[in-house]
């Protein structure tokens, strides 16, 4: 990681702090960190356990000069945050990293126990001594990876992927594993499916707090008592309702980073909802959040002539 460490140190000459990862000695996997000094930067790592999307910290740090280490998918969030003025391009030094797809660490821990030794061989995976196909433990978002290289960066570390990570890792662009099942269900059965899923929700709002685009956070209407938009009870009905609020607030803004589903402690397949909406937005407006700094987000753009009356006179 000499390259990464050097790059972070170099960036620190220009910024207040750099968002990146360190290795947690207890588990051996990466955990988010902030590097304030060159000495601290010595601990920086990047590997296939860097699952977190560090862009989530940008809105809270707005106004400060920052560096951020970003995978391809993370950079999409950075782009979207800049478009929405939650981060200023001039204040940011983006350190792009070449990503060869990342692992679903939570899934590994839940199957093999927290802290199990993870030995990623690149093409296969050894977990606590047992070897298995790496693909089984790939983060789901990597199967649908759009671009493993960040779209915007000031400095780049590692090998360029030159395309979606799925291709290099042997993964495939594939829909959510549950979506085919859900397609086959009658509307009433679908409703029952979601009720069942949301009956587990504990309203911890981890889905919201890890979402880079849910930056209302402390004043999010899923939670405020004033105004009392959403009921305060913890039950399937309310949880489904607040998640629908969240999903719709992310229309045309969700970059598909998968953090909400990853964070959900009770395993609700939140990305099923996001994917569905993202697909609809792409079909309708040809827009994918995070594609380009110059793009105009459809839900935040309104021109009377065109949108209301159409192109014709």
């Amino acid at each position: 990681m000499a390259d990464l460490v050097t790059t972070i140190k170099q960036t620190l000459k220009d910024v207040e702090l750099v968002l990146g990862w360190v290795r947690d000695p207890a588990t051996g996997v990466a955990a988010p960190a902030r590097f304030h000094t060159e000495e601290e930067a010595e601990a920086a790592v990047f590997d296939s356990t860097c699952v977190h999307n560090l862009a989530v910290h940008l809105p809270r740090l707005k106004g400060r000069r920052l560096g951020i280490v970003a995978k391809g998918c993370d950079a999409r969030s950075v782009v979207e945050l800049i478009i929405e003025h939650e981060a200023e391009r001039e204040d940011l030094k983006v350190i792009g990293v070449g990503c060869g797809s990342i692992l679903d660490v939570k899934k590994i821990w839940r199957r093999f126990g927290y802290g199990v030794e993870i030995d990623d061989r690149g093409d296969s995976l050894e977990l606590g001594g047992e070897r298995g196909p790496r693909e089984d433990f790939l983060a789901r978002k990597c199967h649908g990876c759009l671009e493993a290289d960040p779209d915007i960066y000031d400095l780049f570390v590692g090998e360029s992927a030159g395309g979606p990570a799925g291709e290099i890792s042997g993964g495939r662009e594939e829909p959510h594993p549950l979506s085919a099942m859900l397609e086959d269900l009658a509307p009433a059965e679908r409703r029952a499916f979601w009720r069942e899923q949301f009956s587990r929700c504990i309203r911890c709002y981890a889905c919201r707090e890890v979402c880079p685009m849910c930056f209302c956070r402390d004043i999010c209407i899923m939670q405020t008592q004033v105004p009392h938009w959403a009921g305060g009870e913890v039950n399937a009905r309310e949880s489904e309702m607040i998640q629908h609020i969240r999903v719709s607030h992310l229309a045309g803004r969700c970059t598909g980073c998968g953090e909400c589903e990853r964070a959900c402690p009770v395993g609700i397949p939140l990305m099923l909802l996001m994917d569905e909406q993202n697909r609809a937005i792409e079909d309708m407006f040809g827009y994918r959040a995070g594609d380009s700094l110059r793009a105009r987000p459809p839900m935040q753009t309104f021109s009377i002539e065109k949108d209301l009356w159409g192109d014709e006179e």
Partner: protein
Amino acid sequence: MKFIAAKKIPDLLGLLARDARVWAPLVPEDSADTLLFLPWEPGAEVDLERFTQVSPKKLVMPGSEPLFSFSYSMAVDCERLEIGDARGVPGAGGASDADGAGEAPGAATVLFGARACDARSLTVLDALFGLEPGEAYNDPLYRARRAALTVVTLACTSCDAACFCSSWAEGPASTEGSDLILYPVEGGYLARGVSDRGEALLVLDIWEESEQPLPELAETDRVPFGTLNTKLLEIFSDMDFWERATERCVSCGYCTYACPTCYCFNIFDEMRGSRDGERCRSWDACMFYLYTLETSGHNPRPTIAHRYRNRIGHKFSYYPENQGTTLCTGCGRCIRGCPVGLDIRDVLRGAGER
């Protein structure tokens, strides 16, 4: 000693379910990597190997519950007011149960497959809520559920890197809060009654006798608490420490909601139409900004660092001071499930070294 073969566990659950609602570690449908305490039904396969992501505390303190119903309208006539019976008071009837536990408070419930840390957490909460009327904070709903709860604990012969219950005297061998303990051995489980209620279960016609010795229990990580309780007070204003220690935290509610000992709640009114409503309470957590936001707009815990400091201070300093016991049993859930890998032990050790 009494023994039950592993394959007869479903039969045992079936017997328990005759007189009570049984909650056990189950994998929810379509979510193979999740393990939660869920209502057991015949045919459901309990997982007695892995750890659950959320503690079973909702059996004594549901995620939300109505307290009483009312009928009142500010807009129409403030002279008319009806207040329904309090819920959870034996014989009072009261509002319907919508607490997700699916049973009125006081209905017989068995918690099956709790670990020693989970069972012990109940006694930690008892110190606050009280087991007898008028005791401590006197919460009749908690009391009713607690009195109706039988805890069948699964002793830990193995643990993972997040467990740290050995930091307390008895560690995995603690019997506090358990009624019956199952010890995994070759082919099944040895059973030991801890309370009268647990002993009574040993009368069921399902147990065999076994000569096997009790297994060796797990030895977990230990956090040296020492004088941490006073240390935490000393470094209360050391914001530099708190900020650095919590930099990666995103201030969600997972660690507190998953925790078997966190008990904070919020009380609010929900209207069911224009006149009728219910006063409810739901879990709340000190990691949320809104938890301490005052009406004036002032927030004494404006940043994540302030809030996390409270979480640590309450658990390891103020609660021990007020109730005589740490508000943590070392179950490790907050460590395993934190979306950003913040390990409470690192913060505790860091505080100790400060």
